[in-house]
């Protein structure tokens, strides 16, 4: 177990290092921030001073090494725009994004699992066919379009839900959360649904496929041959097996949910990391872009590791101990 963890951590460090080079070089290639940051009527002397102050006069590899040296100490540079540490800037906005992503993920499981279960158990019913047709829509409609439609219907036409911001928040452990107030929840509902739409479809399809496959297994028939109630057969024997792929995939999807929240946050003016990164890209605030990408990479790696560990808890056949 600990050997396994150690190996995974070394692998992770390698991935982070490789990503840092790609991200740094990639961001360097997308244009000159000097043009945007320094007012056009600044004179030559002011320009040069600014360039030196930002470290932009050094060759790329030196800039990278400086960045790397500082990065290992937790310093991912200062935002050109806010003149604040980029890391702090992102971490401040992370709770909002995490809240949105968690709400979307749990919502997707809460809605997707029962629907998928129903569709798997009664594949020929009208309800199942409607669910499956709906899931195709969930897969194929673009997130931004659905977001705009949600605002049109529920905010503009019906006036039921607010369309922007986080609403009232409650502070716990130094961060603000929307889901603890009614007003905050109404603000969270639409963006979370918007972000969840794709995942709901995914969970429905995974669950349905899992149920249909598992129902044909000998061990399900054997469970019935033991005289167990249909309830126990479905919710213990079948359910525990389909939980494995559903948890694995939704877990792995969590990273892309955070990445995709960029779109949703922009539409619903949700003050999370996604909105920050869009604003930063617009003004080429390099340290923030680099820091954001690095944090997302770290998150993906952590999520993968957590999912692997969770998988081993759910599936006894892949227990990680070597016993």
């Amino acid at each position, binding site marked *: 177990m600990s050997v396994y963890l150690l190996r995974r951590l070394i692998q992770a460090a390698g991935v982070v290092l490789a990503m840092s080079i790609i991200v740094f070089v990639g961001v360097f290639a997308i244009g000159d921030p000097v043009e945007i940051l320094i007012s056009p009527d600044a004179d030559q002397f002011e320009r040069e001073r600014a360039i030196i102050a930002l470290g932009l006069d050094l060759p790329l590899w030196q800039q990278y090494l400086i960045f790397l040296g500082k990065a290992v100490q937790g310093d991912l540079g200062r935002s050109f725009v806010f003149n604040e540490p980029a890391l702090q800037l992102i971490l401040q906005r992370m709770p909002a994004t995490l809240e949105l992503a968690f709400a979307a993920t749990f919502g997707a499981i809460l809605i997707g699992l029962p629907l998928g279960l129903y569709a798997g158990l009664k594949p020929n019913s009208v309800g199942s066919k409607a669910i499956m047709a709906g899931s195709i829509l969930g897969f194929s409609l673009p997130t931004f379009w659905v977001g705009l439609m949600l605002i049109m219907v529920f905010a503009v036409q019906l006036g039921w839900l607010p369309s922007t911001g986080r609403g009232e928040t409650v502070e716990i452990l130094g961060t603000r959360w929307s889901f603890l107030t009614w007003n905050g929840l109404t603000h969270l509902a639409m963006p979370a649904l918007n972000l969840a739409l794709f995942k709901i479809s995914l969970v429905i399809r995974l669950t349905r496929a899992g149920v249909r496959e598992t129902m044909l297994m000998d*061990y399900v028939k*054997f469970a019935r*041959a*033991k005289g167990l109630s249909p309830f126990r057969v479905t919710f213990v024997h079948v359910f525990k*097996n389909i939980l494995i792929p559903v948890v694995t995939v939704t877990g792995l999807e969590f990273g892309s949910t955070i990445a995709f929240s960029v779109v949703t946050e922009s539409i619903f003016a949700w003050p999370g990391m996604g909105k920050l990164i869009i604003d930063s890209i617009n003004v080429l605030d390099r340290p923030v872009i680099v820091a954001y990408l690095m944090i997302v990479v770290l998150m993906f790696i952590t999520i993968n590791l957590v999912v692997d560990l969770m998988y081993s808890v759910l*599936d*006894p*056949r892949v227990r990680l101990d070597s016993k």
Partner: protein
Amino acid sequence: MADSLNPATAAAPTLEVRNLQTHFFTRGGVVRAVDDVSFTIGRGKVLGLVGESGSGKTVTGFSIMGLVDAPGRIVGGSILFQGNDLAKLSEEEMRHLRGNRIAMIFQDPMMTLNPVLRIDTQMIETVLAHEKVSEDEARARSRDALGMVGIPSPDERLKSYPHQFSGGMRQRVAIAIALLHRPDLIVADEPTTALDVTIQGQILAEVQKLCATTGTAMLWITHDLSVVAGLADDIAVMYAGRVVEHGDVGEVLDAPLHPYTHGLIGSVPSRNKRGEPLRQIPGMTPSLLNLPEGCSFRARCPRAQADCVVMPELKPWLPGRLARCHHPHLEEVVAA
């Protein structure tokens, strides 16, 4: 539950299957997997059900259990369990018989246990499904059942997952589960074919002992004639969804009436040799989708004559000896 059954029929044989028909309504047509199967098993008796692959043995077993799934359906005949027609029971009544009065052991031990549930979970739930006892009591019963089928240190093994057991051990667990409620009938679908010969022998001996002591009747499905010879009281031979011969195991193996049975045992050199597969008979098993008219063995039968285009009935030719054939091997029986 047992009390919903008619007690006046206690003297009836444990199982009587009459003209059972189970068909699968597939896109390609109707598969007549079981198409006229009849046999009887008395209390404490073992009936060996043999036949080549695809002859409908497993489907017969599932029909008795009431576990035929769509697109399959029992379309005819009756299954009398202690004199009561199982077709007349509701699904709920049938569920109370399953695993309780009638248990089944499946063909493939690697697939019968749920991979994500511990052995104790899978055993205790079986006890609790049919009896209101405490969890501790159910656990004790499960442990005893494991001990009975020869699993060492059953207390520890209860906490294992199926993948920590070998195939032989898993089949013992499945047998232990089948024995939990001391059923009146066990349908054992090739329970030992997947195991190696020594373990097969051990399990057979244990099962035989259990049947003798508890009065449990058994339907023992197998390919292995020598197992049938050593274990069964009676034998039923299936061909293309039908029983073609039924009788006392010694008499049938010594002097089979049906040409198919004759072919099967003709080449088994010694009946004591375990693991001997059934002899290959020249020709192909007919497709169940479009069986030829008349006797389905006709195309492969060395004794076939013109009248074989009419399907023969399963009827007694000698006392206690049934065969589905117009021209059975009677002369050899007389000679024997």
